């Protein structure tokens, strides 16, 4: 009790500080959402807190621009990238943890080395390769280079290493082969890491900008982030209401992914396996 009373002013101060910080961080976000419901006139005049709200902007965004096509492109590419990364990263991580082969550590070292080179540095050779393969302005150019990732392998390897050895031994005695053990035990046991990597790779693909800008030229393969940029330059003057509405639309998947992910980030999911 005494301690609670003593810390009351301290707590008030903490909360004031937290609220202030939350305002600073969330205000632009809310202003963005708010203005997406306003006509361009109000935005242009700087009258950001007008109450002249309507869904017109959203209707216009969907009907007057190819935003649906962009969204579909982004969705397909992000989903395929995510699925491929989950599959290939978990398989290679499994090999690094549960298979014993010559040069395992050296190979893993090489994996890590590729992480040290930023993607921007690989853009020119990558571009030449995809151009040579005739993949430009196509879904494949946005997917193939990202089928696997060294980071994903590294992350899952660390996670797989935590799988109790007894589960492997119990599975050996029951006669599971490597694939059965991988599929029936390792993947479910490391569900949280898989979801984390899935969310990470989905959002990574969704938010790509530089690479799609260089390799796609038509609406058929243009992804949403570049489509948004397109809205800004296609018009002679910037139709801010449309841009605001589109920007609001494209953050929705991000929020959904994070909410779904959050549901699974409960602790204690693996309790009771081994004492």
């Amino acid at each position, binding site marked *: 009790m005494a301690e609670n009373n003593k810390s009351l002013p301290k707590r008030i101060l903490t909360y004031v500080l937290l609220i202030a910080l939350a305002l600073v961080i969330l205000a632009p976000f809310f202003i963005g959402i708010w203005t997406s419901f306003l006509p361009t006139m109000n935005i242009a005049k700087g009258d950001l807190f007008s109450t002249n709200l309507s869904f017109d902007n959203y209707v216009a965004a969907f009907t007057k621009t190819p935003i649906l096509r962009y969204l579909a492109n982004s969705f397909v590419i992000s989903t395929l990238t995510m699925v491929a990364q989950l599959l290939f990263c978990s398989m290679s991580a499994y090999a690094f943890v549960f298979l014993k082969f010559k040069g395992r550590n050296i190979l893993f070292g090489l994996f890590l080395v590729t992480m040290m080179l930023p993607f921007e540095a690989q853009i020119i050779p990558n571009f030449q390769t995809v151009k040579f393969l005739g993949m430009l302005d196509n879904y494949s150019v946005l997917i193939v280079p990202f089928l696997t990732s060294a980071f994903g392998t590294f992350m899952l390897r660390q996670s797989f290493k935590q799988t109790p050895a007894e589960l492997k031994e119990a599975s050996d*005695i029951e006669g599971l082969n490597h694939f059965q053990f991988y599929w029936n035990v390792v993947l479910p046991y490391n569900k949280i890491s898989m979801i984390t990597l899935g969310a990470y790779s989905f959002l990574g693909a969704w938010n790509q900008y530089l690479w799609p800008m260089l390799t796609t030229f038509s609406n058929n393969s243009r992804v949403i982030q570049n489509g948004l940029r397109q809205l800004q330059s296609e018009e002679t003057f910037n139709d801010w209401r449309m841009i605001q509405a589109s920007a609001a639309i494209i953050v929705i998947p991000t929020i959904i992914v994070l909410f779904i992910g959050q549901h699974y980030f409960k602790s204690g999911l693996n*309790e009771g396996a081994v004492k």
Partner: protein
Amino acid sequence: MSTILKNVTKQYDQDKKVLDNVSAEIQTGEFFVIVGPSGCGKSTLLRMIAGLTQISEGTIKIEDRVVNDLSPKDRNLTMVFQSYALFPFLSVWDNVAFGLKARKADKADIEKRVNDALKMVNLEELRDRKPRELSGGQRQRVALARAVASDAKICLMDEPLSNLDAQLRIKMRQEIYALQRKLGLTLIYVTHDQVEAMTMADHIMVLNDSKIQQVGTPEEIYQHPANEFVASFFGVPPINILPAQKVSEAILQVNSDFEVTLPHPIAHANVRVGIRPTDMKVVDSDELHANATIKAVEFLGNEKIVHAKMSHGGEVSVIVSSEEVFQPYQNVEITADSEFLLFDVDGKNITNKGAVTHA
């Protein structure tokens, strides 16, 4: 029809043998306990039988088939781990069915076996729970049910009770014993707890320092231990071992504190005497005749354990009836009956050897 270990040796590096030349025969359908202090190699031996650890030398035969290079699944056995090794993402029912599903058993057959197994360990009510929603004892039962559901006739258990509290351990001990008898399993059970070994085993293998000390029934091991180690490993409190010298053909001077009568002549001049705490006597004494001082007295309800320090060094524990009254620092005289074991200076049991029986 049995499991035969022949000269089994395990060596991880050149100079250190984890298991040295272990040979034994485990009869089909018996409860076989491998017991020893930690680090004696007992878990390694079990894992070699299971096929989880390679054998360096020697052979292991199961049902007349050499299994040295057979993978674990082809040895047709199940294993219960110390840490249970349950799958946290599966329900109790699915955990028990896991091995059967992996072996692609018939669906109706799986259904029946799993339900029977759960019934046998009293877990029917909890079939849809996840392991994290179970208590330690219940998790242990799931691990047992997994072994029961399998059609394998050999079951290996690696210290399955060491994570449970004392009360539950006694209960599970009885349950495991009853299950083994009911199913006619060949059960190979590893433990460091001599009480578990004594209460459950048909045969006990005592391991120490990577070597077999003795293999025998609980009675044989307790009454005729092969050496000092085996004698002191079994029994609570442990047997009292004191040095002794032969003073005449029939008299041994024990620890220079008291004398015992030899049942038969022995060849050795210097021996070690092992006397169980129940075979010693304590009486109050004056300072002149006392040969020991009491250090502590433990009250156990129906009896008391008296811990005393002998005048010429060494400590002994004696079990007395709970009516007798002793105080710490009291001077007492400790003597022994004719019930005792004799060991030579190397610790080998010579109790009935060197006797002039054939004369």
